[in-house]
């Protein structure tokens, strides 16, 4: 029982459910049923209610069922998760009496939903907004987007008629065009497809792409604005403390790559969300590979506790 409470009590566990998933993901497949059940419970609780759930009032069978499933997870998860020193859940060597039956864990999946709609009897704790966790918001530095102008273009003509264009067919088969506001660069191809880079926000990228399309229109082409899509977002921030990259690569070997002879930063490939982070000893972090802003924020909130763990000398 204490185990389950502790999961919901601890504020880090509350918001870093994804990180626990990482730790749990390192287990053998045998435990995957329990993992997913645990996560479905967590996901529902943190998104729907977002409050502490005191399940002590539940009838004994239900809680022991949860207990045994959780106990198994705990036992298995403890060695993995404890490496993530960002989590400070203390796993007491509990006399987990339960010889866990995988079927119990499996059945938990179906019985997971009844837990959440129950009214808790303890006072609710409001969930803390995600950004308040670390107090740091990654700043977007670059957005790459693509759009289809929908008609073939004469690049030579564009390079001739536009002031802000450069075209060197021997070097690259596209016109490079720039505008001042928002300060961006576009690659315009003869097929009518265009890539817009350099904007600092999604809206700016869209505005810039529209301006490029307007320039092409003014030059006499029947340009349209089809399938605008953000392809990549790059953000950066600073956690303001130094990070032991050697330590991090030891505990997160599957996801990290640190080769000081090749690159001074650690390359961390987060699975959920699928973001690549470049982590430097100075505490600066670069996040890239996102298609949406939320992915960047989520990735940073996931990595922050891990980084905190490597802060002390």
């Amino acid at each position, binding site marked *: 029982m204490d185990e389950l409470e502790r999961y919901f009590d601890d504020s880090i566990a509350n918001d870093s459910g994804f990180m626990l998933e990482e730790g749990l993901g390192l287990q053998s497949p045998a435990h995957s049923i329990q993992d997913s059940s645990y996560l479905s419970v967590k996901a529902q609780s943190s998104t729907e209610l977002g409050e502490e759930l005191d399940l002590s009032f539940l009838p004994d069978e239900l809680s022991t069922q949860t207990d045994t499933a959780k106990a198994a997870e705990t036992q298995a998860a403890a060695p993995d998760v404890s490496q993530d020193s960002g989590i400070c859940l203390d796993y007491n060597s509990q006399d987990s009496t339960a010889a866990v039956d995988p079927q119990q864990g499996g059945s938990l999946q179906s019985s997971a939903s009844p837990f959440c709609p129950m009214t808790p009897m303890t006072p609710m704790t409001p969930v803390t907004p995600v950004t308040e966790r670390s107090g740091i918001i990654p700043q977007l530095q670059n957005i790459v987007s693509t759009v289809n102008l929908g008609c073939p273009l004469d690049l030579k003509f564009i390079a001739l008629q536009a002031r802000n264009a450069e075209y060197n067919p021997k070097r690259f088969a596209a016109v490079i065009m720039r505008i001042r506001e928002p300060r961006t660069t576009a690659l315009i191809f003869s097929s009518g497809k265009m890539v817009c880079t350099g904007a600092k926000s999604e809206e700016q990228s*869209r505005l810039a792409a529209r*301006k490029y399309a307007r320039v092409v229109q003014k*030059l006499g082409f029947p340009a349209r604005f089809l399938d605008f899509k953000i392809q990549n977002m790059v953000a950066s921030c*600073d956690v303001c403390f*130094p990070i032991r990259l050697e330590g991090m690569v030891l505990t997160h070997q599957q996801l990290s790559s640190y080769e*000081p002879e090749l690159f001074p930063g650690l390359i961390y490939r987060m699975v959920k969300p699928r973001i690549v982070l470049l982590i430097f000893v100075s*505490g600066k972090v670069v996040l890239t590979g996102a298609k949406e802003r939320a992915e960047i924020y989520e990735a940073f909130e996931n990595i922050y506790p891990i980084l905190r763990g490597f802060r002390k000398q």
Partner: protein
Amino acid sequence: MLSQTCQGCGGSNIVEDDLYCQPQRVCVDCGSVVSEGVLASEPVVGPAVAKKPCLNLIKGEMFSLTMCRILMVHREIEQLSQTYYNKAYQHESFLKVSLQKKEVLAGCCVLVSCRLLNWPITMATILCLINADPTLVGEVYQEMISALKIEAPIVLITDVIETHIQDSLHLPEEFAENSKDLTRCAVALVELAADSWIVTGRKPVPIIMAAVYLAWQSLRPTKQRLKTSLEKFCQIAKVNKYRPAVKRIAEIKEALCKLGKEIPWVREAVTPDNVVQHVEDILQHRYALLRRAMRTHQDLVEQTPNSSSVKHGPHERNDVELNWGKRVLFAPPCVIRAKRRRVEQPELQDVTGDEEISDSEIDSYIRTPQEARDFALTQKMFEKS
């Protein structure tokens, strides 16, 4: 399979009767051909016949074996490296690359095998052996470990030091030093550097070079040794000098000074110029000195009025960032010596992406007809010349 009975008549009277160059066995009684050989004397190429292994693959394996022999690694590493080379060679990312890249691949296989079997080695050593462009080696290495899905542990710099130090007792007494003491001292210096954030994120070889140089100087801090520059030292040691090593020396000396200041029996000020004499003492009492230094620093920080943890506004964040490096005893050098970034222009606020785009703005990006004519003319003249 040589059958002894004829299928046609059942008789066993079979003779060898070649039809021109095709060997045949014919039944004398009914004349039917019992079996016939192949027309060509060479075996038919088919799945049953072993493929001749690719020459380049063999060459590459030999190359990686040679490297292993030069490095004097043990047999397991040799075998592992050849196995990996074999696997990588067949992999689609490496099957069609240039021979040079395949050579580099062999080097990378040796490197990764050493790492997996805990043999301390740096990429710089491999670079020396295969004499290739570091960028190319890095590229091939990354591609190889991702293609073969290898997770190689990182090399601890302290383990590598030993392999870089040799006995120098054949040198004149002024310069000679026994490798055991040198290693011990250099390892301690590198550990100190690691604690002071000098090692993380940096290439290991310049640090090793700096540590060995300082260790060599401090073991016998005679005037002669102290005067010897890094360049001269590299000449004596017969290695190529690495430019970053000079910076590392300065950084390590700075860290040593911070600890040297805390030595109770030293009256004079400890500066980078005279710190080498105290290195032995500093290393011996490292932890005690570190504790004292941290306490002193703590008192200093508490005394200054700026130590409050007031939250700063976004535009002041830059200063806070720079300050955090100054507020701690040891910080990564890139933080202490942070370069002033170009101040970003104030961002476009509240852009929705659907704003009206003014015609005049777009027109400013388009040439006037006269301009276009001039440009075309200039281009033609340019092309003609």
